[in-house]
């Protein structure tokens, strides 16, 4: 086994009596793209939130570069600066301009000089075709633009890993493409990506590893070609058949 960037060992998470993750084991190699697919409620988003330490896990371990970051009381803030996250509903700060959204964390948490942070933001916006939006407010942008700004905001703290939580699920169909293009570019740049997604075709094309979740278990994991064309477990087969019938693959 190659050295994993992030490793999960027997991770359990419950909300009250509702157990959402029931023993997740997963190794995410540095520079790889891992897709989490599966029906709604299968635990994809919770898994990402646990990796970012937004949700404390009940049992198990999460390692970042072989350091257990899931120890209760572990300082989460430095970890989160190494693991960025992008959300389904963008979650941009509505009272701040695009520029301020992007520079807030670098300036406040990394102590980056404001002018330097702004230059960096401008550079990132340029790279993702948003240069003219630097002074716009989130409400003035389309969903696709907002999501791209959210990605830039996460990138501005130079994370080593980026978690993408169904980032196209609340976009109009014609805006999905521009966001997925950004993800492709990130893969090219060598960033480690973990994405929860319902875009099956995209997951098949971009992933190095695909995991099918159901009921808080990873019921199938492997190369995309193998998982999508010849799933081993019955439940994974059923899930993929439903997806194919719905015309999503």
């Amino acid at each position, binding site marked *: 086994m190659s050295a994993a960037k992030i490793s999960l060992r027997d991770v359990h998470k419950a909300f009250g009596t509702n157990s959402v993750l029931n023993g997740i084991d997963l190794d995410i190699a540095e520079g790889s793209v891992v897709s989490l697919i599966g029906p709604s409620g299968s635990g994809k988003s919770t898994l990402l939130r646990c990796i970012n330490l*937004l949700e404390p896990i009940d049992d198990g371990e999460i390692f970042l570069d072989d350091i257990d970051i899931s120890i209760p009381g572990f300082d989460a803030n430095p970890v989160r600066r190494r693991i960025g996250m992008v*959300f389904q509903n963008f*979650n941009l*700060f509505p*009272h701040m301009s695009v520029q301020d959204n992007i520079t807030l*964390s670098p300036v406040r948490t*990394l102590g980056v000089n404001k002018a330097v942070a702004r230059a960096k933001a401008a550079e990132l916006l340029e790279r993702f075709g948003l240069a003219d939006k630097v002074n716009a407010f989130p409400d003035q942008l389309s969903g696709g633009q907002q999501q791209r700004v959210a990605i830039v905001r996460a990138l501005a*703290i130079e994370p080593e890993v980026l978690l993408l939580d169904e980032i196209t699920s609340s976009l109009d169909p014609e805006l999905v493409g521009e966001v997925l293009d950004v993800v492709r570019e990130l893969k090219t740049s060598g960033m480690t990506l973990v994405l929860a997604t319902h875009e099956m075709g995209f997951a098949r094309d971009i992933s190095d590893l695909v995991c099918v979740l159901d009921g808080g278990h990873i019921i199938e994991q492997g190369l995309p070609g193998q998982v999508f064309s010849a799933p081993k477990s019955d439940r994974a087969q059923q899930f993929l058949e439903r997806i194919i019938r719905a015309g999503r693959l």
Partner: protein
Amino acid sequence: MGTVTGRRAAYERARKRRSTVVATVSSLAVVTAIVVLVPKMPRWDRVHESFFNGERFANSLPRLLDAFVLDIKIFAWSMPAIVSLALLVAVTRNSRSAALFPLRILTIAFTDIMRGVPIILWIYLIGFGVPGLGIDRPWNSPLIWGSVALVLTYSAYIAEVFRAGIESVHESQRAAARSLGLSSWQTMRHVVLPQAIRRVVPPLMNDMVSLQKDVALVSLIGPIEILRQAGIDKSKFANFTPYIAAAAVFLLITIPLTRTTDWLIERQRRRTTGTRIS
């Protein structure tokens, strides 16, 4: 859009004309009724003489305006203190750190107790009680401790307004801020509070209008501000007109404040909900 052609526009114009006529006629009817009927009451002459005496009004007004300066002063130093203390209480109460648990309990007790007792009672208790401890001049002034009573009670009310604002900021905003590595205090300071405060400006203005009036309650423990000055004039001349004059002075300040508040509320409604259902 904006053109005056088409049947929709004609309909809107007709409807507007009609509602203007209805409003004018009904207002005139009410005013006429008051102007005609009230003077027909059996004792109107005496009320007119003792409440609406033009000479007394003109005589008292300069003294009342002088005294009103003290109301404005109390308001001016109480308001920033109230807003700061209220923010502190609201933020403490909304903090999620385990270490702050005792402080959270304290803030809950503070808001419950301060809001549970009439303001007048607090002004008496603090205004007479604290100087009674034997504090030296000038720190035993009822003006100071009356203001402190106002600050404490109003902070409790306004802390609840801030708290409502803080809780109205969606959890996903905190998630986004925390995922960027911001600490919980940085999240509060840069992400939650700016949004919360913007949302509660209109109800906050409402409380400021109340405060502007309740400042007069401090007079109960001694300071001669406008209400007390009106009382003095009333006793001296055995005439209630100074009270009417004092009321007029208050309205001079509170009506613009109230109108501004309504305008702010209306502007926020338009921003957040878009179209209006008639």
